């Protein structure tokens, strides 16, 4: 496992600083408190979604996990999507319902009745790869184009959920919420005291120290 780029950086440490306003605190608090149980999806759909999302954005052991299934469920429950659909695609909720069902059916057909969630990472990735490359289709999918479902729905929705989570911001060294406080030092190689410090080679300890004072 590679070492974190921004060791000890926690964007949540800025929660009570001028970098976060009340509206932001409310929104992120709510996101972090998303119930970890199906509310829109069925239990079966949830278990496929959880395993599936885990392959789209694999979790790291050393970082706080991002509960993708819960976040996806919340997004579908609220029906907070981009609104439009491609002419040959259903709207978001229906696309996910049908897509998850088809993935599960594909898994069962290919792996002797085993559910998608029970497959090895490699088998799951192989199935997803086939979907991404246009190698899936047929009876399980009806008129839903699997490749289009993957590109227009999965790759639009899931990464957006992951990179809306503070844990992901920590990982990539994003400054996170910034209001009313913005930034003074606008150059990239020039960080404000409330920005993530990077562990450049030989300066890991200093980065860790700086990141403790990111407030």
């Amino acid at each position, binding site marked *: 496992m590679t070492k974190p780029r921004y060791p000890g950086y926690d964007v949540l440490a800025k929660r009570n600083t001028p970098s976060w306003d009340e509206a*932001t605190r409310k929104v992120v608090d709510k996101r972090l408190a998303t119930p970890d149980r199906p509310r829109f999806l069925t239990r079966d759909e949830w278990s496929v979604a959880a395993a599936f999302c885990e392959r789209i954005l694999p979790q790291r052991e050393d970082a706080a996990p991002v509960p993708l299934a819960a976040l996806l469920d919340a997004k579908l429950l609220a029906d907070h999507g981009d609104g439009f659909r491609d002419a040959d695609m259903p709207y978001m909720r229906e696309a996910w319902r049908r897509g998850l069902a088809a993935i599960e059916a594909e898994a069962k057909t290919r792996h002797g009745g085993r559910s998608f969630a029970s497959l090895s990472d490699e088998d799951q990735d192989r199935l997803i790869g086939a979907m991404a490359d246009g190698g899936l289709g047929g009876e399980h999918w009806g008129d839903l184009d699997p490749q289009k479902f993957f590109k227009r729905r999965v790759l639009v929705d899931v990464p957006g959920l992951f990179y*809306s989570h503070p844990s992901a911001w920590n990982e990539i060294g994003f400054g996170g*919420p910034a209001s009313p406080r913005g*930034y003074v030092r606008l150059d990239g190689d020039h960080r404000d005291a409330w920005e993530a410090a990077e562990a450049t080679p030989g300066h890991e300890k200093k980065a860790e120290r700086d990141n403790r004072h990111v407030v």
Partner: protein
Amino acid sequence: MLSNPFSAPRARHGRAPDVFRHGAWVSMREHRETDEVDFAIVGTGAGGGTLAALLAEQGFSVVAFDAGPYFRPLEDFASDESEQNKLYWTDRRVVDGANPIQMGGKNSGKAVGGSTVHYAMVSLRFRPEHFSARTSLGYGADWPISWQEMWHYYDLAEKQINISGPLTYPWGPKRPRYPYRAHELNGAGKLLAKGCEAIGINWTETPLATLSAPLSGPEGKSPPCAYRGFCRFGCTTNAKRSALTVWIPRALAAGAEIRDLAMVGRIETGPSGRATGVHYHREGEWHFQRAKNVVVAGYAIETPRLLLNSADQRYPDGLANSSGLVGKNLMTQSNQAVWGRMDEPVRWYKGPPSLAITEHWNYDDNKDFHGGYIWLGQGPLPNEWASIQTGARGLWGQKLRDAMLDYNYMIGVKMVGEMLPNEANRVTLSDDLDQYGLKVAKITYAWGDNDKALIAHALEQMGRSIEAIGAKGIFLQEDDTNHLGGTARMGSDRRTSVVDADCRSWDIPNLWICDGSVFPTVGGVNPALTTQTIALRTADRIGQLAAAGEL
């Protein structure tokens, strides 16, 4: 403690939110539905918001409708990409064609202030020849307004919006000094500049509708930009000069009424063939507002949709559609980009995303295709950056997560390019219904050969520029578009256009269209300033016509 801007209208009971002060209100004149107001304006963005202010200031009675909520930027906007999805028009729509347009943040807004609430504030003038593209450059269509006249109204728009820009703009005819100085460049802006210098073309600081110094205007007190970088997700600083912070407060002060969460579904016409008012949905039911004039300002999708949805016995093909052009000639702008990794951190999340610009290829005519383009510095926040990795590179899994680790080292430059009008690119009605029970828009789009040639040229030039400054692992984002135009074009011939130079429909003299849909060509620059400029001119013309008794 805060009220939910979506749950109930805020502009009512004689008051509207004061966007500049927490929890405060400004007084608002209200009109009865039975009053025949001078103007009912549908939409409060760059076109409708501007017009509402300017018409009210001339003493006309004005009611402006917006389907979206009346946000208080200081209280309702979070510093969060996905939460701020609430600023976009995410009602149902169907996209179709060889190159379906992805709808959302880059081409729509559903809020009082319209998409200016989340636009990137890039405030550019069309190149003079853009206004006579057919005659001067041999493509597209001519505008019925001369560039000199537009230049005059651009002067007014830049002054009233209070643009921050460079002291001298390197391209085009002379323009007055921008009211405020250009902003400090961030890392991404400096790299764009270096890239341009490396390939021998000019660059400058982007004229932006965000303040580089405090402003105490009649509309309220704004602090300067805090460089927080969330411009495209709503400005919590109020440094952004959107319709919500510039024109709407002026409209209210001059006696206009704003109706938020009010979706106009149909324009009514009377026995004389003139418009008599609008049907709108607010607080769970349909209402009718009588009006002497109706202005449609819903942008290039919702404007034709409303005109088509308003078809009646007299106008079976929709209103103002005797030319058959309503909905046709939809144009978007090419928004391709090149991205690469630098050896030093860039941290492009700081500051407005597009602080630097080159307009070189708008003014160079030695190209083997029509039209021009600009490119701008970029600063996508994590969600958008992830969507670029998945959309342009097809990354997923560990590869996606690993690629995202380089977030702070990335740079990119993104074009805004001209796409040519084509009648086959159009807005029609789908059989899908939205939450109001109205037919939704179906948007059909395909790029033409010229569009593709322009994109290829831009990708090559942009690639050269970032390669020259040492960007590594360069990749192209080939499938992206942004702003819209067309679908109700203006012109000087009623057979080939929907409205005249004054934005007045040829067919129905008291029906006006004032937004990006009147653009005969989209030009190679971001359109918001031009839309506001058109509204400034339209307001003047309406005043003159009224004085002459020709309304």
